[in-house]
């Protein structure tokens, strides 16, 4: 039996506003418990919601970025359930009339081909608070600082066919929201959270199998692992002739497994109805056009531009546009040194290698684009060689910033003075009569030996082109 995996993702993105969706409380992360919980956030009797306009702008900009239909009239609804992190006893969300309707997004598969993933909708809703389960005399502690933080819930169609596609989709979403600047996308802090709906069906079937929902997976890696575990689990059950139970499962990253959430609730009945404290949100074309006009260049467009404008390979362009920060870093480097190819190499190989090693995001890079751009300029103007540049790069990565000062202080400047190089060449030839004889006897390969010796003698600073030229001249003399 061949099984086909069917995955749909629901991604909650915390929008990077200053204040909450319906109150003037700060959304700043990490404050002392309940110090950012206003009367409204605490659901004090008599309090009312007033919507933050920035949330609407952010939602619309996301919709435009994924070519979605924008809801000209969106309606908030109450989703009713009791939970201590939900102070009103209902969450304000959007059911039938979300701000963002159907859209789509392109991902790149492992074989290099593209796939379009349909986005069902994206709606605005409130985040919940947090329950802390440390022991407070056998009680739980409730912190409502997060309650009411604006979320955009982005729902995909069940178009994804394996964990890798799911991760590619998530990374693309992540990149888009960062390009738009509507969220910090920090998965570890919960700014972007993912629920995965996973089901299996026989290859060729058109109907979907029973799905399970894996809740709150908080990194790309865990999304992949959780889905793979769940797929394996479902295949085993189905292979044994069993049935999948429709349920919510929690991914345990320590044990690398999903497990059923123990919930006594038979079936949730959320009793959605239109939120009477809020009127429909009505927007016109002018509002949408104004947002469209301020949209930044998005990853796909930028990638295309990098290929045409800078002559980069599709692979390099893809790597360099994978995040807005990266693309901006790269362009800042190019602007300084004027050499796109060299910049692409340095950023995608050296800099990314360094960042990976130190587990840093490019926005936290120890080397600024100004430093890297200057460094490449110094290669181009022959101040230093490519090899010496690696040494300077090392020094930069340790926290120094002034490229020219580093070159100067450590005497790394390339030797281009013909007289000095001539002396080096003479010294090497004089010191190695046997090799000179071999070379002159026709053994061309020995040439490299002379280059190495001369370079060593110059402490790597001799201009390689000049050195080669002089060596050949003197050896053939």
């Amino acid at each position, binding site marked *: 039996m061949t099984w086909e995996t069917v995955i749909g993702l629901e991604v909650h993105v915390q929008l990077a506003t200053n204040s909450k969706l319906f109150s003037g409380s700060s959304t700043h992360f990490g404050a002392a418990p309940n110090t950012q919980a206003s*009367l409204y956030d605490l659901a004090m009797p008599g309090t009312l919601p007033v919507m933050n306009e920035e949330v609407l702008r952010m939602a619309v900009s996301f919709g435009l970025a994924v070519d979605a239909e924008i809801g000209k009239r969106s309606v908030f609804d109450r989703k009713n359930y009791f939970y201590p992190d939900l102070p009103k006893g209902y969450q304000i969300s959007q059911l039938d009339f979300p701000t963002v309707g159907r859209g789509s997004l392109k991902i790149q598969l492992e074989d290099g081909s593209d796939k379009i993933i349909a986005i069902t909708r994206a709606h605005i809703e409130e985040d919940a608070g947090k329950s802390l389960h440390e022991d407070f005399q056998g009680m739980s502690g409730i912190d409502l600082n997060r309650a009411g933080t604006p979320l955009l819930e982005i729902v995909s169609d069940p178009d994804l066919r394996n964990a890798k596609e799911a991760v590619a989709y998530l990374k693309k979403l992540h990149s888009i929201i960062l390009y738009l600047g509507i969220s910090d996308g920090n998965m570890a802090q919960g700014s972007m959270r993912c629920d995965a709906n996973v089901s299996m069906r026989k290859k060729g079937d058109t109907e979907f199998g029973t799905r399970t929902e894996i809740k709150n997976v908080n990194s790309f890696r865990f999304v992949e692992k959780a889905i793979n575990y769940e797929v394996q689990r479902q295949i085993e059950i189905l292979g044994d002739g069993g049935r999948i139970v429709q349920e919510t499962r929690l991914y345990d990253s320590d044990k690398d497994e999903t497990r059923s959430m123990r919930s006594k609730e038979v079936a949730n009945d959320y009793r959605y109805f239109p939120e009477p404290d809020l009127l429909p949100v009505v927007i016109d074309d002018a509002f949408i056009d104004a947002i469209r006009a301020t949209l930044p260049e998005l990853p796909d467009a930028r990638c295309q531009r990098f290929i045409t404008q800078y002559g980069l390979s599709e692979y390099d362009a893809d790597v360099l546009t994978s995040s807005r920060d990266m693309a901006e870093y790269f362009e800042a480097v190019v602007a300084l040194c004027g050499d796109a190819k060299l910049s692409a190499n340095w950023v995608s190989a050296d800099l990314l290698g360094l960042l990976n090693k130190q587990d840093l995001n490019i926005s936290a890079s120890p080397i600024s684009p100004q430093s890297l751009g200057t460094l490449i300029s110094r290669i181009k103007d022959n101040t230093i060689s490519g090899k010496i540049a690696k040494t300077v790069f090392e020094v930069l990565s340790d926290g120094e910033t002034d490229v020219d000062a580093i070159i100067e202080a450590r005497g790394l400047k390339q030797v281009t003075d013909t007289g000095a190089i001539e002396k080096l060449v003479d010294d090497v030839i004089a010191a190695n009569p046997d090799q000179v004889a071999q070379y002159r006897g026709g053994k061309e390969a020995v040439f490299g030996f002379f280059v190495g010796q001369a370079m060593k003698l110059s402490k790597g600073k001799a201009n390689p082109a000049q050195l080669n030229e002089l060596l050949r001249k003197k050896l053939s003399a």
Partner: protein
Amino acid sequence: MALDNTDVEKIAHLARLQISESDTLEVAQRITNILDMIDQMQDVDTSAVTPMAHPFDASQRLRPDVVTETDQRDDYQKIAPATQDGLYLVPKVIE
């Protein structure tokens, strides 16, 4: 629409209301009476009518994205049943 005890228990659970067993029958009876009164609505054909959620066809006013609230935790928690270290305490939440 007549409600029975099971219906009442189901609704009471959804609404998180404790209804003692001895009261269930009476509650079912009274709610049934209310629903009977409400059911007069069913005689009217409303297939062509748009539901009205609000008295006026107005649209939402929006507020600028500005932080206007300050920390009032101590004041707000004075009236809380149980707190510790700035947290509201409730019986253990089991996930």
